[in-house]
């Protein structure tokens, strides 16, 4: 079945350093979504990428969708302690008939720790 893999599993950085997490799907995706989960909290939607090669920015966060629409990355410039949490990518999870009903397959997430 469809698999979505994320690396690294853990990342420890000093405040001010950059951070990147990578997401790879076993299948071509119509879109990819990114979520952030703060410690003790629930996942919160960050962004959706749809087009091949698309790049979107949210302040210090840069999201990229690969040309083949099978991989994606999230890069954070100059991390801050508020960036701490787990970052998940997720792609549509279709049934055998090809309809996803909004279902998603989530990657295992990258746990980011920022040391002040």
């Amino acid at each position, binding site marked *: 079945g469809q698999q979505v893999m994320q690396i690294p599993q853990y990342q420890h950085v000093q405040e001010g350093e950059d951070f990147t997490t990578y997401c790879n799907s076993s299948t071509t995706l119509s879109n990819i979504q990114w979520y952030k989960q703060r410690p003790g909290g629930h*996942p919160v939607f960050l962004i959706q990428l749809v087009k091949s090669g698309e790049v979107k920015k949210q302040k210090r966060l840069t999201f990229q969708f690969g040309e083949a629409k099978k991989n994606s990355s999230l890069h954070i410039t100059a991390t801050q302690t508020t960036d701490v949490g787990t970052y998940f990518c997720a792609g549509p999870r279709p049934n055998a008939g090809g309809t996803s009903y*909004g279902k998603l397959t989530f990657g295992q997430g990258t746990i980011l720790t920022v040391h002040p």
Partner: protein
Amino acid sequence: SQTIHQWPATLVQPVGSPLSLECTVEGTSNPNLYWYRQAAGRGLQLLFYSVGIGQISSEVPQNLSASRPQDRQFILSSKKLLLSDSGFYLCAWTHGGNQPQHFGDGTRLSIL
């Protein structure tokens, strides 16, 4: 605006006891609803989803069941809990298609 409520926030149950977790959505109609389980430090495992009242699809065989008695109500149940049912249970809704999912605050379930 739309909101999603889950309760209880935490629950400690003995092995073999029943379970009922409730999730309700406000401010929207006919949402797609989802139950996930998250083990500590791990990703989200989709357990059930529903596209309408009484319509439940299971993604993984397990000791749990789900029901949707009303349009905006989604219930996760078990007749007899196992130790392996421990985890963080999250309910989410979306309008389907490629729309983002919106999660409730979750229930932390510990089985003793």
